[in-house]
């Protein structure tokens, strides 16, 4: 049983003009797909071949001799989570219980947004910014390269990919503009609310 590339949850042009069809074509069709292919090559004929993705990630995390396994497996997971963190006509302020929880843990939606922007802007090099649940409280974090909340005792609620490949075609070096666009036009708060449970 190999790991497979999940289909995008929307059409490749569905996030335009904010994220172009060209970006999603490469990001899903080449980058995400390559992580899947690399991982399958690494786990072929090993006992991890029949394991599910989370089990693979957790079993190789922190083992320097399995860095390739971890990087590819975590990037498969991260990208699937990122596609679901966006939707056409998304973004803006969430509503309902999620908004109440954000206001309780951050003070206001604006404070959450400010922290999220700072984390995503200051993640130096390649990586991710996250909204996570830790010890029952929401917080904003950032991780380098493939690193992800599940190996830090946190539950992922929402993520943004800040590898340059995520925004270079559409925004060039202007990462802050990409992050603002993500928050204003793309966030899938339904997905975040479902993760909150």
């Amino acid at each position, binding site marked *: 049983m190999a790991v497979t590339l999940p289909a995008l949850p929307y059409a490749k042009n569905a996030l335009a003009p904010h994220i172009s069809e060209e970006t999603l074509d490469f990001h899903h069709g*080449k980058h995400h797909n390559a992580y899947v292919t690399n991982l399958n090559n690494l786990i072929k004929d090993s006992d991890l071949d029949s394991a599910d993705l989370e089990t693979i990630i957790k079993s190789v995390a922190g083992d320097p001799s399995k*860095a390739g396994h971890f990087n590819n497996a975590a990037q498969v997971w991260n990208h699937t989570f990122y596609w679901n963190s966006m939707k056409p006509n998304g973004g803006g302020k969430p509503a309902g219980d999620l908004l109440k929880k954000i206001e309780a843990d951050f003070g206001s939606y604006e404070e959450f947004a400010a922290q999220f922007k700072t984390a995503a802007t200051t993640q130096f*090099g*390649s990586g991710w910014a996250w909204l996570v649940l830790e010890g029952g409280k929401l917080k904003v974090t950032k991780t380098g390269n493939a690193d992800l909340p599940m190996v830090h005792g946190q539950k992922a609620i929402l993520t943004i990919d800040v590898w*340059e490949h995520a925004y270079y075609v559409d925004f060039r070096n202007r990462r802050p503009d990409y992050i603002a666009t993500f928050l204003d036009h793309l966030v899938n708060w339904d997905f975040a609310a479902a993760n909150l449970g």
Partner: protein
Amino acid sequence: MRFWILFSALVTAMTATAQFTQAPLPYSYSALEPYIDSQTMEIHYTKHHAGYISNLNKAVKGTPAEGLSLTALFSRMGEFPDVIRNNAGGHYNHDLFWSVLSPEKSDPSPELLSAVSSAFGNLDSLKKRMNEAGAKRFGSGWAWLSVDPNGKLVVSSTPNQDNPLMSVAEVKGIPVLGIDVWEHAYYLRYQNKRGDYLAAIWNVINWKEVSRRYAEALKK
């Protein structure tokens, strides 16, 4: 009166000169076409490199790092915050990168070529080693050819904007050639195909400058 205002503004601007400044690019943005495209060069030089310099000037101001040279900062890297490590590295690495690229064909000096032969076999094996180091660097970083503390050539890679001069580097040495493998260095022309970018860049390597840096490094 108006002249005096203009004059004092000029003096203020001159005395406020920042510690670190950007050297002019030694060729035009389009000079490395088709291997490195003009738009990439322009954004890379005017936004990425310039950004590291302005962030570095801000980061050192009023701190114990102020007034120290880049090499002094690198040798004591553990004493300074990440913002200095990242931006000092970003400045030095790009400054070196522009200098080791050129639209003009040149050859390695006989001394460099013989050191390459004894360390790697031949020039093609060096290129292969560098390409592997660059391809394997997960995320953002650099591939390096350096002179190690024993005077031998060594290939390595570093994450993000680290370099072999830094006290925190795994493989230490004096870099003579560096290849940027951040996605911003190649994404507009090569997208996900970092290997194609690495194969192409050898068409625009300034071997004259790499040889000069090699001779300099041996003296140290």
